[in-house]
């Protein structure tokens, strides 16, 4: 049986891991290679490396980081941040990514999703969707680190990205991100019912119960950053709690 995945996420800027709430007030959280190997040893099922530098120099750092991580890492690696065209994805894959995550560029030019799926395969094409709850109900897609509303509906957009060839959705609740109040379960349930591809839950995790709730709500994998970086939990200790709760995880 396929096991639930625990995915630590490393936000990187200029070759260092950083952390902060909604990308505000970023603090240094360590060396990406050391942290990646540490999480691998703890039993992480996959890693996500997101480049948050948004400068050409930063992009160069990121490729070098991916190369250094890949040399040692024997679990899957998803990379994202700053992918504008299919060639950007190609450069990350060449550096050692197994999957590439695209967010804003897919909203600006949805045809990019088809390009990526044709060139590199659906299993390699992850679409990141940042969602914000409407007061009137439902969720809207936001981009540019939550600063810009797109007018798109999250459920409709999820269906569209899958039709265009996305193999996985990385779904972040912008209302919950950094709040430590748990994943947004209604959102997860709605998106995972709307699509047939795996959905990764992101935004809001602070304890093992949050992870269990997300998996029960329909997520296939759970992504978290600060709970790992702060050393409150290890992947191993989280998996022990999940296993006791009846969730199948890889030992």
């Amino acid at each position, binding site marked *: *049986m*396929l*096991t*639930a*995945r625990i995915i630590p996420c490393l936000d990187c800027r200029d070759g260092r891991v950083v952390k902060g709430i909604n990308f505000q007030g970023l603090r240094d959280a360590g060396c990406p290679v050391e942290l990646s190997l540490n999480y*691998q040893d703890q039993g992480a*099922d996959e890693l996500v490396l997101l480049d948050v530098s948004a400068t050409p120099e930063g992009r160069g750092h990121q490729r070098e980081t991916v190369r250094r991580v*890949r*040399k*040692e*890492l*024997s*679990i*899957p*690696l998803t990379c994202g941040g700053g992918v504008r065209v299919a060639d950007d994805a190609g450069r990350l*894959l*060449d*550096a*050692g*990514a*197994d999957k590439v995550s695209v967010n804003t560029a897919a909203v600006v030019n949805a045809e990019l999703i088809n390009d990526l799926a044709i*060139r*590199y*395969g*659906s*299993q*390699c094409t992850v679409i990141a969707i940042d969602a914000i709850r409407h007061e009137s109900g439902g969720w809207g897609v936001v981009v540019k680190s939550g600063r810009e509303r797109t007018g798109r509906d999250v459920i409709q957009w999820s269906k569209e990205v899958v039709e265009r060839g996305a*193999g*996985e959705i990385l779904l972040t609740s912008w209302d919950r991100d950094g709040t430590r109040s748990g994943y947004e379960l209604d959102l997860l349930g709605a998106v995972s019912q709307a699509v*047939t*591809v*795996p959905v990764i839950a992101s935004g809001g995790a602070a304890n093992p119960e949050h992870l269990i709730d997300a998996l029960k709500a329909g997520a*296939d*994998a759970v992504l978290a950053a600060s709970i790992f970086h702060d050393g409150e939990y290890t992947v191993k200790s989280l998996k022990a709690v999940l296993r006791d709760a009846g969730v199948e995880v*890889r*030992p």
Partner: protein
Amino acid sequence: MKDVAVIRTGTANLASVLAGLRRAQCKPVLVDDPKKVTSADYVVLPGVGAFAAIMDQLRSRRLVDAIRERIVEARPTLTICLGLQVLGSRSEESPGTDGIGAFDAHVSRFGTTVRVPQLGWNCIHPASDCQFLTEGYGYFANSYRLTEIPEGWTGAKADYGGSFVAAIERGPILACQFHPELSGKWGASLIERWLGVKREAESC
């Protein structure tokens, strides 16, 4: 250090395959010349993407016969993911495109009761006569799969909306639906066993 010829298929995660082989203390060399595929001691056929796309590449470089001969002559060969599927005769993914045809098998898509692609770690149960494969968790990234181990081969199965083929082996040939290069220590030890390097295996 052993040289390992890795067939250039335009596969997306080639860097991971090369890194995995380097960690297994061998020297991967990219090849697309049929003579080199024939003469190499060890050959790896990685594969990510679509069945027809990889077959077109193999055909245009005249590699199909060279790969089939290695399988028939039982020479050390490791194939990964789509690299397993193309050894069969045909796939639901690309009707009308012939595979390498090392055995008669039809590759089909996972059913509608599970999320597709299958992305993640699944427990692998090998038959008792496997020499490389052990019980453990492998990382899968696939939408299509074989459902039966071909005649004359042994192998391992896993479950995803029903039983499917996780890997097959015969003599020095190992063909994995999962990615050994992304399957942690268990996957690394599998690659090492295929290369003839001994190391203790971890199990489920």
